[in-house]
């Protein structure tokens, strides 16, 4: 694992609560390198997360952090971005956090198309609560709650995102730090809602989707793949044999919510006094 020092490293000795061997360690490395290589000022980044193992990520990354409620990272991210569009806003979330508890926000945040990058640590299981099925759990996996195995259709996050006309949709595999980093960099650079669903092995609770399983069951999109066709991207996402990795779709033509609602570049904290003339004018309309 490429462990170059970055300004986003936490002080030495910071206790990391993840299990040894967990895919999250690699994803964290990819994140820090991506931010570093993009030359982003850490004072200007806010990492927003919910609750879960994945959602602990910003605790281990030296930048501003809003570690909110389980499932609620996207609305918080929206509030932050709309209050200060100069901030780089990144969401780190788990498959349960984002697609389970947070499903409704996932739908409607995509519809808004504000400029945010969403990294989902998709380990296909609820890690922090000890191994129940998540929306992306594969059929058949037995858990303490799904005693006879998971029976629901797995949630297909990128297909849903594309059905909602998401402008940027990618999938990565945490085991491959370099390419994951590069995908994350493109997602952060992208202006608009970008989602990266990252396959992340959970070595304790998911014995089905292991490092080996991911290696065997994924394949990168061909070099010459053009991420400009929604229908084609969807067909690839309905594929169940070799799961493709890479950027499925990227379309910067959709208007940004920030532009549409015309918020200026001045952060809200800088104009928290009402315009006095406007105020008198408003009042007088009730005379």
């Amino acid at each position: 694992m490429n462990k170059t020092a970055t300004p986003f490293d936490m002080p030495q000795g910071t206790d990391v609560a993840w299990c040894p061997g967990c895919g999250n360690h690699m994803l964290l490395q990819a994140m820090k390198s991506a931010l570093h290589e993009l030359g982003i000022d850490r004072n200007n980044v806010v990492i927003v997360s919910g609750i879960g193992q994945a959602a602990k990520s910003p605790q281990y990354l030296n930048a501003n952090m809003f570690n909110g409620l389980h499932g609620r990272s996207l609305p918080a991210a929206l509030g932050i971005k709309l209050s200060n569009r100069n901030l780089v806003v990144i969401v780190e979330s788990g498959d349960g956090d984002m697609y389970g508890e947070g499903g409704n926000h996932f739908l409607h945040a995509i519809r808004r198309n504000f400029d945010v990058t969403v990294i989902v640590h998709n380990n296909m299981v609820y890690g922090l609560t000890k191994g129940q099925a998540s929306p992306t759990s594969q059929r058949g996996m037995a858990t303490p709650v799904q005693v006879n195995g998971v029976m629901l259709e797995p949630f297909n996050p990128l297909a849903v995102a594309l059905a909602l006309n998401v402008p940027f949709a990618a999938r990565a595999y945490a085991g491959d730090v370099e390419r994951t980093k590069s995908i994350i960099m493109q997602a952060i650079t992208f202006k608009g809602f970008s989602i990266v669903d990252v396959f992340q092995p959970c070595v304790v609770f998911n014995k089905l989707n292991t490092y080996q399983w991911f290696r065997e069951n994924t394949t990168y999109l061909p070099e010459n793949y053009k991420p400009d066709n929604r229908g084609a991207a969807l067909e690839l996402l309905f594929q169940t044999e070799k799961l493709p990795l890479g950027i499925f779709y990227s379309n910067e033509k959709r208007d940004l919510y920030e532009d549409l609602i015309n918020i200026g570049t001045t952060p809200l904290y800088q104009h928290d006094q009402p315009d006095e003339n406007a105020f008198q004018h408003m009042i007088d309309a009730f005379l």
Partner: protein
Amino acid sequence: MYRDISIVFSGAAGQGVKTITTALLHVLKKCGYNIFSCTEYMSRIRGGTNTTEIRITEKKRQAYVHHIDMLFALSPHSVEHLQKRISSNTFIFAEKERFGDQWATNFIDTPLSKFALETGSLVFSNIVAAGVAFGIFGIPIEIFTDYLHEQFAAKGDEIVAKNRAAAKLGYDFGKHIAADKGIMPLVNIATESPDTLLMDGSTALGIGAIAAGCNFISSYPMSPGTGLLTFLASRTKSFGIVVDQAEDEIAAINAGLGASYAGAKAIVTTSGGGFDLMQEGVSLAGMIETPLVIHIGQRPGPATGLPTRTEQGDLNLALHSGHGDFTKAIFSPGTLEELIETMQRAFNLAQEYQIPVFILTDQYLLDSISTIHRTKVQRLPIETFIIKTAPTYQRYAFSDNGISPRGIPGYGEGIVRVDSDEHDENGLITENFGVREQMVNKRLTRQLSLRGAALLPTLIGPVNQAKRVVIAWGSNHGVLEEALDILSDNTFAGLHFSQVYPLNPIVKSLCENKTLIVMENNATGQFADLITLETGKPIAHRILKFTGEPFSVEEVVDALKEIDHE
């Protein structure tokens, strides 16, 4: 000769009750009358019965009265609906042809449609109706026609002329009826300066929010909380307010907290059911010590209940909202002045104490229209308490009063971390028992100074001498004041609370050696319980109403008289 008159307009949704009453209120205000208007409507867009009461009073009044002096019944249903409020003294104006079987001989046939059609179209019926009212009151027609001119000038001379003609037909009819029935014109009790503003409760709240520097609202529509959202939405441009209609209430409060974390002055508005969904967010606000103002427009529950009616049933809900122990404050304004002022106070307090602050209103208060003198629009200095961070910044640095300097991301050289988990001074997750204990204390310590700073109740009458004190909160300010005035019994006095939590320690001394009577619009007496908990004093009587209607002046007077006879 009326010195205090209650005129009620009632008809199906879509029949234009609102158009008529708006016209009336504007003109009456222009004339300098003291006016108050409240409205009750069904949860439907067309049909049903919507009713608006307009009071013209010698003294300034802000309360609903049960009795009706004049009723304009636009539909047969409305007479049925208002049966209990009609007495032999009520003049009922109605259009015979609409009533068929349901016509009663004491009704005054008022040919609104006929006059409207004479003018050119049925759409003028409402103007005719308003004309009738002015005719009866004997208010010079010019003031009304001037108003019509103002309203319709943009639509061209013909429209203006037609409206005037309709008004005139109604007016003459009204004058004629007044003479015929011996209805005396309204004496000149117009004592209000014309320099007053006419508005409803939602507007006053909105003005308060803007005066406080509010620049962010994220909410999901829910009656009667929506008014504040639409008010701010319509002012987006003038004041640079970011308005986002959320996909649900959970999103709304989390967006509000995100915004506040980033430095916005944020508010959310909802009603009880929507607020239920925000509770985890309230708990988060408590944990991350992030200011937020939460407006709950109360309506009758449980569940969907009566969506367009009024109740004061969400006090306990707000007070105990969100799991875990942390600090909150709750305001409960009862007049336009209080709405404007407490909203600003709520923002300032939220910023200063870094806590969630509630404003509890209700449908009755939000939809009631009244006037406030231009100079009574209080402006509090806007306080912000945001600091530029140093590199060593710690979001949750311990301090004597429990409050840490508030940094926001991107302003200064520090890193700002807020965490829903128990955390250390840096905002990073911790499971250290000692730090946990200190942090709980940190979050609760500020309660003390908050208590000391709590608004005192408004004293109504001789509180010191009276042996019985009637306590009200929120929208019951006006009705309590008027009832005590009518009762004019020195053994009674009143206290109105526009802040219900925490209670200032002085409240206890105000309650010392008094028979306490609490009146509120809910079934159990939630504020009564809170008074007992906070002051240790028992409540002797609870006057409760939970039909979905506000208290009327008459029933409060009766209830107090009954207590007097005990």
